[in-house]
Structure formats: C-alpha cells, structure tokens
C-alpha cells in the first residue's frame, strides 16, 4: 500500500477561473454582485427594478442563470440593458467558467455594474466563487422569518441581505426583528435592506447604497 499526499482543493479549477474573473473586473472597474435566493423570492424583480432605476446613470449588464427557460432574460431585456442568459441545463448552480464564457457578449470596457442572477437555490451555489465582489441573498416575507437558520451558510457568506415582499407583512406572522436578529447571529456585519419590488418600498435605500458602492469600485462619479 502506498499513501500519496495531495493537499489540493477540490474546486481549485473553479477558483482559478474565479480569480481570473475577479482580476478582470477589478481592472475594468466593474462592481459585480452574485444574487442568490430560493426560487421566487424576487431576484429577477429586483434586477428589473435596479436596472430600470440605473438607466442613464450607470452602465449595467445582467447574466441570468436559468435551469431551462429564458423567461427571466426576456423580462430583464425589456429594460434596455444587456442581458446574457446561461441555460445551465439542470445544473443547480453557476460556476466561474460559465460567467467567463458570458463576458464576451458585453462591451466590458464600458460596464460599471454586472448583476448575476444565480440559479434559485440557497445551498448549491455556496461553494462556487464566480469572481464577484459580493454575494447578495434575497429572502422574501412568505418564506418565514427563520430562513437564516435553515440556510446559515449562504447568510454567512453574503455581504447583503434583501428582505423582499414587505408589502405582504400584514398577511403573515413574519417578524422582521426576529429575521434580522437571526441573520446577524450568523453574520453580524450583513447589510440588510427591507424592500418590496411591487410597491417600490425600501428600494431607494438599496439604490443609494449600490450606487455609492459602484462609484467607489469603478471610480465613476455621478453623471
């Protein structure tokens, strides 16, 4: 019997490509967000609201990962923004090489912001770095205020938490304070926004934070 020492990361190939992506984004001054949630929490809705608000202020582009269809891409494309659809064909997460292959479809020199809608799933995408600046997790009111306890890893590794569908608060027993307490037990530094993509409530705060961050990363000043 022979023992061979390896000491190698299982996802080292993905990590290499993610590092390349990150270097490129840095060099081009592009802020990149990896949007994560369960199916139906509001990733596409938040992207639609965000790109439509940024229209004429910042150059944004979107990558959407969908299991089978291009419905999300069509919804987003209505807002005159560059969108590239990645059909994962059943894969439960995006990986760094998928993102890399999508980049030639954009005028990358002109971009300020890239939003990546990951596959709707709060578990599988966790291990796959795409080269983003920050992961952003969305949970919505009907999913319950204990969502962070059920998916602690994703809440731990996200910089931003959006609690969406606050317009539905009157119809549920969702306790906002509890939800935020749970999230901060896992990740004390997580930035929380309470939004409704339907009524627009809370979106201003999110836009302001996002624009501030984009200008910090890209060096652009408000037009």
């Amino acid at each position: 019997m022979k023992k061979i020492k390896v000491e190698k990361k299982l996802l080292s190939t993905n990590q290499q490509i993610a590092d390349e992506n990150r270097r490129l984004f840095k060099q081009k001054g592009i802020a990149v967000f990896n949007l994560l949630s369960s199916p139906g929490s509001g990733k596409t809705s938040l992207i639609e609201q965000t790109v439509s608000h940024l229209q004429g202020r910042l150059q944004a582009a979107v990558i959407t990962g969908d299991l089978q269809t291009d419905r999300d891409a069509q919804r987003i494309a209505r807002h005159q923004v560059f969108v590239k659809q990645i059909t994962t064909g059943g894969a439960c997460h995006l990986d760094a090489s998928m993102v890399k292959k999508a980049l030639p479809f954009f005028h990358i020199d002109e971009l300020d912001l890239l939003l990546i809608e990951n596959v709707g799933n709060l578990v599988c995408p966790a291990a796959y770095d795409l080269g983003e600046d920050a992961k952003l997790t969305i949970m919505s009111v009907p999913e319950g205020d204990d969502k962070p306890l059920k998916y602690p890893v994703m809440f731990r590794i996200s910089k931003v938490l959006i609690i969406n569908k606050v317009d539905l608060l009157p119809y549920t027993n969702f306790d906002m304070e509890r939800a935020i307490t749970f999230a901060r037990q896992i990740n004390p530094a997580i930035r929380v926004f309470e939004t409704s993509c339907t009524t627009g409530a809370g979106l201003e705060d999110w836009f302001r934070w996002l624009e501030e961050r984009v200008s910090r990363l890209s060096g652009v000043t408000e037009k």
Partner: protein
Amino acid sequence: MHEMSITTNLVELLNKYLQGRPGARVTTVNLKVGKLTAVEPDALTFCFQVLTEGTSIEGAQLQIELVPVRARCLQCQSCFEVEGFYFRCPRCSGKELETIAGDELDLVSLEIEEDEKDKG
C-alpha cells in the same frame, strides 16, 4: 445536487494521480470538508459510488473528516469553535470575527495498491 459536480472534480483529480500507474487501485481517499461549505458527506459518498463504478477507483473508501467552524475574535484575539452558526466571541461578545476553519473542501491524500506483477 452540487455534490455531483464536486465529486466529478474529485474523480478527475484522482485519475491524474493514477496516470502512469497501470494496475493501480485506489483503496482510500481522504477528504476534509468544512461545515461552512454546505456540502453533505452522505451525498458525496453516494455520488462517489455512482461515478467510480466500473473504474479503478471503484470500491475505494471515501473518508471524510468534517471540519468544525472556528473563528478568531478581532477584538480580543481569542480563538474558538463556532457552534450552531452563532458568530459571537464567547469571551468578549465581539462580533468582528475572522473565520479560520470550516471552509475546507480538500483532497488530503489517497492510498493506492499496486499490483506487483504489473510493475517493472
């Protein structure tokens, strides 16, 4: 199930180490999996069985060391195990913590048996 693509990477890695060793059989594979990776050991084991069937890796023991989450408090410098994903320093209640263990997803080593008569 992301364990399938992770295991695919594992098998590719193992095959690299088997290259140039005809007749070699993998008996044990040692992995380290941190609790911050959201990777299920049972799912890994299942995928490993499926993906290695009929290859020279078939039947190898997949030994998975689950690594607990550990953190260092940036305020008082103490190091401790984080239980139940409650990220708070037990000594000073500090919230600024650096994760120092628990995000491993590593192939540590493998054990192989080489057929004597195939050597030389």
